Structures are given as structure tokens and as C-alpha cells.
């Protein structure tokens, strides 16, 4: 009988599992990477316009696409992630960001064609789980000692949270500083957090799962949404048509119905 060193190689099953992981990851990316709207009234042979938009615009933009003649295909992500992708050559015709700073950064990097336009505003509100377990009464001292979740200061919603707290004279002690407002909302709707600072549109979208408290100081620090045609747009005329639809009455009414502030 001889002593054989055992083979450290992964068994076939593990390899299969890894392959399955890869397949899952691919399908996940496929569905999250971008959803396209078929644009009911698209004219024959019209080239679609590719819109890179801040994630918070997902619901209104998908509804908007159903009502326009232009055919849109969307990619939704965090604003700075979108700018990074365009910088690396991603094929976008239109860029929509959830803050001015990111749009100006794109402008400075020479990624835009023409002046960006403001299309909407949004402001922070305080949300708690529907049953408000910590008995919070509003954006005040009742937040002390509770499990508060906010965005981190380098993310637009986090920068706004700091300003709002400063104006209200509150010293926030969050248990978590999330990288996106979606994570803040998720922590509140799951009941993991007692309270969170999110945008009014997020709170509206969450419906009955959260209780919403307006923040008086928030109107002094609104976040602004900006749109621009990209410098490398393959379809600049359709991109301009999309923007004028968006800034027109129908587009603005739709954004208002989702809780955005419009002029």
C-alpha cells in the first residue's frame, strides 16, 4: 500500500457550480444592464435614442417612453457611474444626472454637446417603517439614539443630508452610511432601520410600507436633475427630440406625478 497525496483539484461538481454562477451573473447583468421600451408609436427605421439616466428616474422614464414617438433604450445607474461609463466610450446619446456636480464634471471632461438643462428637482424627506417602532416625531431630537440610516457624504443624497441636518441644527449619528438612496430605503422598508433620509420620490414610490415626515429645511437644499446631449451621440437629433419632450408639458406633468418638483 502506498501513500498517495490527495488531489487538491476542485471536483467536477464545483466547476459546474462555478459555471452556473457565471451563467446566473450573466443573466442578472442582462436584465439589469438596461431595459428597452418598444415605444408604441416608433416610426419605421427610426434609430433608437440611448438614454443614460440616474437610477431614481427609472419608473417615470419607462412610463414616459411608452408615450413618445422616439424609440428609447435606457441604462439606469448612479449618476457618477454613468459618467464614468460614457468616459470609457459607452454609447449614450443622452445623459441625465441626479445632481448638478456630476453633470458639470461630465461637461468639464468634454463629454457633452451643448449646455445642460435642469429638468426637475427633488428633496429629502424622513421615512420610518409604517409602524414607526422608535416613535419618531419628525426631523428633530426624537432621532437621537435610534437606528438612523443615511447616504454617505460623497453620494449626492448624503451631501444633501449633511446640509439639511446643518440647517436644522441636528447632529446626526447614523448606524450606516449607504452608497445609494435605494439601500437607505431598503433598510427602512425591511424594518432593519428605525428611520432614513430619502428623496420624496422614493418615499412616494414606497407607498404604505413607510411613514413619511417632511423636512422643513430640505426645501433650501433641493437636488436638481440635469439633462444633456452627449458629444459622441450617434443620433443627436433624436436626442434633442427626447429632451424637448421631457421638458415639454407632458414630460413635466409625468415627472410631477412621480413626486418630482418641476417649474
Amino acid at each position, binding site marked *: *500500500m502506498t501513500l498517495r497525496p490527495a488531489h487538491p483539484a476542485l471536483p467536477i461538481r464545483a466547476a459546474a457550480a462555478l459555471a452556473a454562477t457565471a451563467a446566473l451573473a450573466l443573466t442578472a447583468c442582462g436584465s439589469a444592464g438596461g431595459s428597452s421600451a418598444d415605444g408604441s408609436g416608433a416610426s419605421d427605421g427610426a434609430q433608437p435614442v440611448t438614454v443614460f439616466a440616474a437610477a431614481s428616474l427609472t419608473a417615470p422614464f419607462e412610463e414616459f417612453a411608452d408615450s413618445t414617438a422616439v424609440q428609447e433604450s435606457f441604462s439606469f445607474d448612479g449618476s457618477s457611474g454613468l459618467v*464614468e461609463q460614457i468616459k470609457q466610450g459607452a454609447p449614450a446619446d443622452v445623459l441625465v444626472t441626479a445632481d448638478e456636480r456630476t453633470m458639470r464634471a461630465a461637461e468639464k471632461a468634454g463629454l457633452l454637446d451643448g449646455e445642460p438643462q435642469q429638468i426637475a428637482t427633488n428633496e429629502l424627506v424622513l421615512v420610518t417603517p409604517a409602524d414607526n417602532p422608535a416613535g419618531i416625531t419628525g426631523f428633530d431630537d426624537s432621532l437621537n439614539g435610534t437606528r438612523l440610516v443615511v447616504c454617505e457624504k460623497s453620494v449626492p443624497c448624503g451631501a444633501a443630508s449633511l446640509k439639511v441636518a446643518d440647517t436644522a441644527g441636528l447632529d446626526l449619528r447614523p*448606524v450606516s452610511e449607504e452608497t445609494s438612496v435605494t439601500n437607505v430605503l431598503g433598510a427602512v422598508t425591511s424594518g432593519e432601520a428605525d428611520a432614513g433620509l430619502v428623496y420624496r420620490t422614493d418615499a412616494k414610490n414606497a407607498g404604505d410600507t413607510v411613514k413619511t415626515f417632511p423636512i422643513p429645511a430640505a426645501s433650501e437644499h433641493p437636488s436638481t436633475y440635469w439633462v444633456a446631449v452627449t458629444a459622441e451621440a450617434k443620433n443627436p437629433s433624436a436626442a434633442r427630440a427626447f429632451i424637448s419632450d421631457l421638458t415639454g408639458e407632458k414630460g413635466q406633468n409625468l415627472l410631477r406625478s412621480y413626486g418630482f418638483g418641476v417649474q
Partner: protein
Amino acid sequence: MTRPPAWAWAPFALALGILVIPLAGLLATVSWSQIPELLARPTARDALGLSIRTCLASTVVVMLLGIPAAHILARSRAWWTPWARTLVTVPMVLPPVVAGMALLVTLGRRGLIGEKLDAFGLQIGFTTIAVVIAQVFVSLPFLIVALEGAIRASDRRLERAAALLGAGPTRTFLRVTLPTVLPAIASGTALAFARSLGEFGATITFAGSLQGVTRTVPLEIYLLRESDSELSMALAAILLGVAAVVVGISMRLQVRSSHD
């Protein structure tokens, strides 16, 4: 001595290219001069310290649970063994965010178990414990799968001989079974550690993100990307370096023990 067929070199080169070129691209883009500046930042230092502490903790837990578990799976002939084997590998195919959601609805404050813990004033969410739990959940299968295959492939006659000579099950396991599969333990542990080090989705979903408490290096990289993508690349390069050291050490251990 058999040689691989000549055509195998083409897929080999392609495989190597697919795996190495993106990493080389990353390393070529990193502005190395920023690394001292990065390491001087409390946020990055806290993230590195937290990542190393939590990964060491989760790897110890993974070894304590995974090594005996792999032994049972490899030697059991019961009807439930194939089922258990499948269940153990499921977390490997779960997207990490789904793993985080699964942990949240179980151990979260309103989860099946979390609710009971909450009644005793114990809360896991937003704590460093949550980070370790997320890492164990996603990395434990890697050790079990790697080790179970090795134990099954190892020679059972040695264990029988030990038993005949009067060694009990524990002694046989520790003195006969484990030494023959040391290379698999090393590689499985390194895989588990590396998986914990890179863990992102389950952590951000289940544990949250607070400097020094739950914000590990992958979370800090993601966050830095918002404000300074160059610094975020530099931190990614550091993470890559730590992972390379861990995998490198385990390879050396493997080579040495298989030459014993």
C-alpha cells in the same frame, strides 16, 4: 509522461488572456504615487483593518465548521447526503445581493430568527458580526466543496488500518484523514478567505456601511468611485495585492505538503 495535445495551447492562451488582461489593465491604470496618500486616509486604513479582521474571523469559523462538515459529507452514505451536498453548494450560485436579502429576512430585526434575538436586545444588522456572518455564508461552501472532493478521493484503507490498530474516530480523523488532505485544506481555506475579502453584495445588503464598523475594502472602493475614481483604483490594487499574497502562500503550502 503524457503531454497535453498541441491544440490545448490555444484555449490555454485565451483563458490566460481573459483572466489576466483586465487585471493588467487595472494595474496599468493605477496611479501608484497615490498609494501613500491613500494609506494616510483614515477611511482607507479603517476599511483595510476591518477587512483583515473580519476575514480572519470568518476564515476561522469556516475552518471550524467546514472541515468536519466536509468529512461527514465525504464519508456518509445516508439517503440525505446528496441533498445536503447540493444544499451546501447553493450559496455559491446565489448572486451575493440575494445572499444578503436571505440573511436579512432571517437574521434581520424582523426576520425569523432576528425577531427572537431582538426580543433579548440582540441586534445583528449594522454590526461587525453581520459582516462576518455574510462572509461565512458566502465562503463556507468553497472550503466544503474543495475538501469534500479531496477526502472522497483519498485512500479509505488508511483510515481502516488506523481503526484496526485501535484508533478512535476522532484520532483517525485528526491523525490520518486530515494530514492526507492538507493541500485541499490549504487551497479551500485560501479560496474561502479570498471570497470573504472580495465580498460586497451580501455585506452591503445585510450589514450596511459605516466606517470602521461595517465598511470593508470592497464597499470603500465602491464608495470612493463616487468621489475619486483614481483613489478607488489604487485601493483596488491594494486589495488585489492582499488577495495575491494569500493565494500565493496557500499555493506554497500546497506544493510543500504534496512533496512530503
